[in-house]
């Protein structure tokens, strides 16, 4: 059996409340907060980016796995905010963590599901017997144009998962992907911010793909929603994952542990992976986890995990996601946020 041998997540310290952004643009803070089911979002420090976030999450994953970094045969980072257009983020990560140089790396991009793409390929390498361990990471310092609806949610964070065959903390029982040409959200080469199709991002995109992957996964596994202890879906706002879970037959209780978006925002490629990390932080041996990501463009990756006895040995080896979300917060005003996110034009 192949599965997760170590996991880790990282969340920056900085936050901005949705009501602060709403006030800046003359929107009704109460209506925005209620409409998105979102209180605040994470903001990267000025010296943080997808690479530093990936390194921090991967360090925690290595700590939990307790393996020699040199045994990792591949590292894939999924993000839509890779700092370099040409130079894989993982080239820096593997040198920072002592993983290389005998390692295969790549950067993945698929809007918000690049992280689960990285996890899927890492899992497949190990399953194929090509290597002992492989790491998949989803991390982002998400972009949203000033004044756009995305600005309320686009946040920062990431999670890393080391796949292997021995001492698994969670077995991967089934996977399924569902993909189509759906132009709901995109960013052209050289553009600073993504564009989206407004309401078109809902039913024809997010809901169609997650439901498509989710139903196929349930059929493939011959399992029912009631069999699962936990479920997590991509979290572009607070409401969509609750609604898609309901459509697939899951309850609020099953989604509660992974529903981190009200206090974290949408970490794009790190969204459902961070939700999975939050679930693993509290999961018990034998628990089944249902996970479906979504990336605009569009596609969904689905996974079914079964937690093993090893989980209780590793949960406290690194900081837990909700601890990071709840502690050491530094709140920014809109001016500081605009500076941190480089939204202010400067003389070069």
């Amino acid at each position, binding site marked *: 059996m192949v599965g997760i041998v170590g996991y880790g997540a990282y969340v920056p*310290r900085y936050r901005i409340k949705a009501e602060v952004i709403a006030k800046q643009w003359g929107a009704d803070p109460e209506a925005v907060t209620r409409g998105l089911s979102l209180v605040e979002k994470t903001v990267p*420090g*000025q*010296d*943080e*980016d997808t*690479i*530093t976030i990936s*390194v*921090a999450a991967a*360090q925690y994953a290595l700590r939990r796995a307790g393996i020699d970094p040199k045994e990792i045969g591949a590292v894939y980072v999924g993000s839509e905010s890779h*700092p*370099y257009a040409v130079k894989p983020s993982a080239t*820096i990560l593997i*040198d*920072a*963590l*002592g993983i290389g140089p005998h390692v295969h790396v790549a950067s993945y991009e698929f809007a918000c599901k690049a992280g689960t793409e990285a996890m899927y390929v890492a899992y497949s390498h190990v399953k194929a017997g090509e290597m002992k361990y492989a790491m998949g990471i989803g991390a982002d310092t998400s972009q949203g144009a000033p004044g756009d609806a995305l600005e309320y949610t686009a946040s920062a964070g990431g999670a890393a998962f080391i796949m292997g065959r021995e001492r698994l903390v969670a077995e991967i029982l089934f996977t399924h992907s569902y993909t189509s040409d759906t132009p709901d959200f995109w960013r052209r080469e050289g553009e600073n911010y993504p564009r989206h199709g407004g309401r078109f991002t809902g039913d024809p995109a997010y809901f169609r793909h997650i439901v498509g992957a989710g139903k196929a996964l349930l059929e493939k596994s011959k399992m029912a929603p009631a069999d699962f202890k936990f479920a997590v879906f991509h979290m572009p706002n607070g409401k969509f994952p609750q609604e898609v879970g309901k459509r697939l037959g899951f309850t609020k209780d099953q989604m509660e542990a992974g529903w981190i978006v009200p206090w974290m925002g949408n970490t794009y490629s790190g969204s459902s992976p961070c939700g999975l990390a939050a679930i693993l932080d509290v999961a018990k041996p034998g628990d089944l986890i249902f996970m479906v990501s979504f990336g605009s463009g569009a596609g969904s990756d689905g996974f079914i995990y079964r937690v093993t006895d090893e989980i209780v040995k590793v949960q406290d080896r690194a900081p837990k996601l909700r601890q990071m979300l709840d502690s050491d917060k*530094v709140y920014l005003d809109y001016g500081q946020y605009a*500076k941190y996110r480089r939204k202010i034009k*400067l003389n*070069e």
Partner: protein
Amino acid sequence: MITARYAREIPQRYRLEASRCAQCATVSFPPRLVCPTCKGRTFSTITLQNEGKLLSYTVVRVGSDKFSKETPFAVGIIELKDGIRITTQIADANLEKLAHGQTVRLVFRKIQEDGKAGILCYGYKAIVV
């Protein structure tokens, strides 16, 4: 262009690799070609611990060009558990609450950018824990 120098310094900046003299065991960070104690030229590579304490610090309010938009920020002298002292920026710091003797941990952060189109330079900074 700072690419060649940056690449040479990756082992110490990314992984805190130091050199231990084979003759007198003096640890040098960053690694040196000649031991400052016994002039030995044979070394083994060791990795320093990433925790220590803040010995001293100052707050930079007028930064050099590359750091002028990050002010105010703190720069401190850290004594690592190995006894090695390093100078580094203190990230995510509440400047009013910094104090000598605080426990710190080194984290991986972006240090600087070589202009708008040049390379991104990463390395260690300290955070108070």
